């Protein structure tokens, strides 16, 4: 006979503030098969766990229901405690009284009643649980890092330095990401390239890192420790082994009028190009969309001039099959561009630019060699306006969040401008200054106090052109919403940071969650900021939300530790919540009729055929069999099977039925 123990947690006051825990414990205690029911302030604490362990022994419990927070939070904790007391961990279930009850309802009778019902479902379920043994699967000790910005670079180096193999996939021709475009970086104003380039080179030279640029993830199958990944290496139209990177082709290419992405469109590049001088790898690619040969079938000048004969016009894309144990997603972010801001005249007036364009302008290697000059006529602006929160924190624009980096880089931009144009005037329109971070507020203060940047608190309503000048109209809310009008030579918009193009598509290939803005979602907002909901896939950098370099790097190192921890084991233990096809004694063998419809719906190719032979060795029946190493326990086959021959451990037909009935029936 079942002897169930129920442990109701107050979670401090998180549960007991709206749920009458005493009443729940008392009501549950009277249920059939409940041998013990009690309440305690913090079940997850050491004394709380001891209480459970002691009760298991003292009351000879055959099943445990911990009624506390979400199982997604503490199920491993309590299962481990049960195991320590000699109870099979899979005989422990959790009733979610916090996230699904006390936190979302008011304090009243109904809430306590709901709590009782939730506990009852789990009591009924756990009675039908069976003792299970974890499944062991091997771990492929190679990590894949997707995206070669600073976050991806840090993660790859950290993992490689623990002695494990890393494959880095970068979709553009060079690694480096946005950081390679930056001039100087807050809060220290050190040159971005100078600190980044050595890291990029280290990636290329590291014996444990294999770098694929101009490559994208085609598909991902499998699961933690055992992913099967297909990579598309886009044709560079070049034999990289022969090319010496002399760059002659790039100077001779007649097609020279392609907007340069690295310069944010402020310069031109040829069709065969290296994105920037410090690119890693430092080899050109042919941009097929703009190459005259690919468009018109004639040209091939690069092929003629190449001294080593490295150009390959007929090179196909290559598909690589990789076995991967863990994945770090570091695909970064982008910023809102152009037409998103009609009210600020962006796209209409040449002298309105975005933050990244300002970075290129301020870079010594940029299109103006580091001089601040207005795009329209090349004049040095005497009055410059920076508009913070362009698009951010603006629910009307669909972007309710703060982009986090703009306050800081706007202060940096104003400062850089003042350092380059001493007599110029810099104005910043802002909503609030958000400068939390080590030495960050001091940095902004310096801009205001030492560099005399004019900070105006208020929103800009419009920007328009008059007599070759930009008129910026806004209000100063610190002066009682007084209108202000500034006649500017140039305007810089700190446009909102947004998810990178293709993020949603990649998330779907990886089966990881993402939010409404297409940023990748962490497994827990506080305690699992590096993990995703999918085991074995981790996050690093701005693909999660806009963040600055120190934050991106810290998270990258965090993800590397997670990978290293995973790779420290030769075998992984997995939850044995897998499907099983029933078996009976001959001549029945199984109720499975051998239709194998289940095979066609299983996403993991986990369903095999098993043949039963008679004494003469003749096959008398062929039925389905689940490979438990491959099954991930989705249960699709279970719901599909018409002869009801498959069941799912942990979510069996009997268990879910018992749960539903517990909710509806009187007790």
């Amino acid at each position: 006979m079942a002897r169930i123990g129920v442990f109701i947690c107050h979670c401090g006051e998180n549960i007991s503030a709206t749920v009458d825990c005493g009443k729940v414990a008392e009501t549950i205690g009277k249920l059939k098969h409940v041998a013990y029911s009690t309440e305690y302030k913090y079940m997850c604490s050491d004394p709380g766990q001891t209480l459970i362990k002691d009760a298991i022994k003292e009351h000879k419990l055959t099943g445990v229901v911990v009624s506390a927070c979400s199982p997604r939070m503490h199920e491993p904790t309590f299962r481990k405690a049960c195991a320590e007391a000699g109870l099979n961990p899979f005989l422990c279930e959790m009733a979610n009284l916090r996230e699904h009850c006390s936190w979302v309802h008011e304090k009243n009778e109904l809430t306590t009643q709901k709590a009782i019902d939730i506990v009852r479902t789990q009591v009924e379920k756990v009675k039908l649980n069976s003792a299970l043994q974890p499944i062991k699967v091997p771990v492929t000790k190679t990590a894949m890092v997707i995206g070669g910005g600073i976050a991806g670079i840090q993660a790859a180096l950290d993992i490689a330095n623990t002695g494990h193999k890393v494959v880095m996939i970068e979709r553009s021709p060079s690694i480096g990401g946005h950081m390679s475009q930056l001039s100087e970086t807050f809060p220290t104003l050190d040159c971005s390239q100078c600190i980044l380039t050595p890291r990029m080179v280290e990636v290329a030279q590291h014996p444990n890192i294999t770098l694929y640029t101009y490559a994208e993830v085609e598909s991902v199958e499998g699961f933690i420790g055992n992913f099967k990944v297909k990579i598309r290496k886009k044709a560079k139209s070049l034999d990289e082994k022969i090319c010496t990177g002399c760059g002659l082709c790039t100077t001779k290419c007649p097609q020279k009028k392609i907007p340069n992405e690295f310069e944010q469109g402020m310069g031109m590049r040829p069709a065969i190009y290296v994105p920037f001088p410090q690119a890693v790898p430092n080899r050109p690619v042919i941009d097929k969309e703009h190459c005259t040969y690919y468009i018109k079938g004639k040209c091939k000048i690069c092929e003629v001039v190449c001294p080593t004969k490295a150009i390959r016009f007929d090179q196909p894309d290559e598909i690589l099959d990789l076995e991967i144990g863990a994945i770090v997603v570091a695909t970064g972010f982008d910023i809102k561009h152009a037409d998103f801001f009609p009210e600020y005249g962006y796209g209409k007036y040449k002298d309105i630019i975005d933050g990244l364009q300002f970075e290129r302008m301020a870079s010594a290697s940029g299109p103006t060699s580091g001089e601040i000059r207005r795009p329209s006529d090349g004049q040095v602006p005497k009055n410059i306006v920076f508009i913070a929160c362009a698009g951010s924190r603006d629910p009307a624009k669909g972007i309710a969040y703060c982009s986090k980096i703009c306050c800081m880089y706007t202060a940096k931009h104003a400062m850089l401008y003042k350092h380059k144009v001493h007599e110029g005037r810099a104005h910043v329109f802002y909503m609030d200054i958000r400068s939390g971070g080590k030495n960050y507020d001091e940095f902004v203060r310096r801009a205001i106090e030492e560099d005399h940047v004019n900070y105006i608190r208020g929103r800009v309503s419009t920007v328009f052109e008059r007599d070759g000048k930009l008129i910026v109209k806004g209000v100063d809310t610190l002066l009682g919403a007084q209108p202000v009008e500034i006649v500017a030579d140039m305007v810089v918009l700190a446009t909102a940071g947004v998810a990178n193009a293709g993020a949603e598509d990649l998330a779907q290939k990886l089966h990881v969650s993402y939010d409404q803005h297409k940023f990748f979602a962490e497994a827990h907002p506080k305690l699992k900021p590096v993990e995703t909901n999918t085991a074995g896939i981790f996050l690093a950098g701005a693909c999660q939300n806009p963040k600055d370099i120190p934050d991106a790097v810290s998270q990258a190192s965090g993800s590397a530790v997670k990978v290293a921890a995973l790779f420290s084991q030769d075998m992984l233990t997995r939850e044995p919540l897998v499907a099983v096809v029933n078996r009976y004694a001959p001549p029945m063998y199984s109720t499975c009729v051998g239709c194998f419809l289940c095979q066609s719906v299983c996403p993991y190719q986990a369903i095999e055929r098993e043949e039963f032979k008679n004494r003469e060795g003749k096959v008398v029946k062929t039925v389905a069999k689940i490979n438990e190493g491959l099954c991930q326990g989705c249960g699709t086959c279970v719901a599909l099977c018409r002869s009801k021959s498959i069941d799912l451990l942990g979510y069996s037909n009997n268990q879910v039925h018992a749960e539903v009935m517990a909710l509806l029936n009187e007790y």
Partner: protein
Amino acid sequence: MSDFEPKVVAFVCNWCTYAGADLTGTSRIKYASNVKIIRFPCTGRIDFMLLLKAFANGADGIIVSGCHPNDCHYTSGNFHAKRRWIMFKELMDFMGVDMNRVTFSWVSAAEGAKWADVVNTTVTKIRELGPYVSYKELVNKSVEEEVKND
């Protein structure tokens, strides 16, 4: 009918909607307490016969919710669920189940507020429809007849 408290059962997948409902909690967004959640690994696991059993046993409304199309943790479970659901709906229609009592929705792990919305809208609707007795009576009658025929 003013003190009618509908019984609504929610069949949700672990990876999207269950996690989304967790986020509703973490964000302290309030919603009607009439709904009770049954967790499945994936909507692909949900055997829709269970919906009929729930109605027969006194459920007034049902929510089925999982990952958005293309977002299923197991790639295609929600897709197969949807295909089965389309066929099952016809069966339910045929059996005279009031389809207004079933809400089918997608709620992701990041949509805590949407979960509260789905629950509140459903509970309001079911409250207006009143207790679901007709299907229960129908089932009970046919069971009685069967017993008699035996």
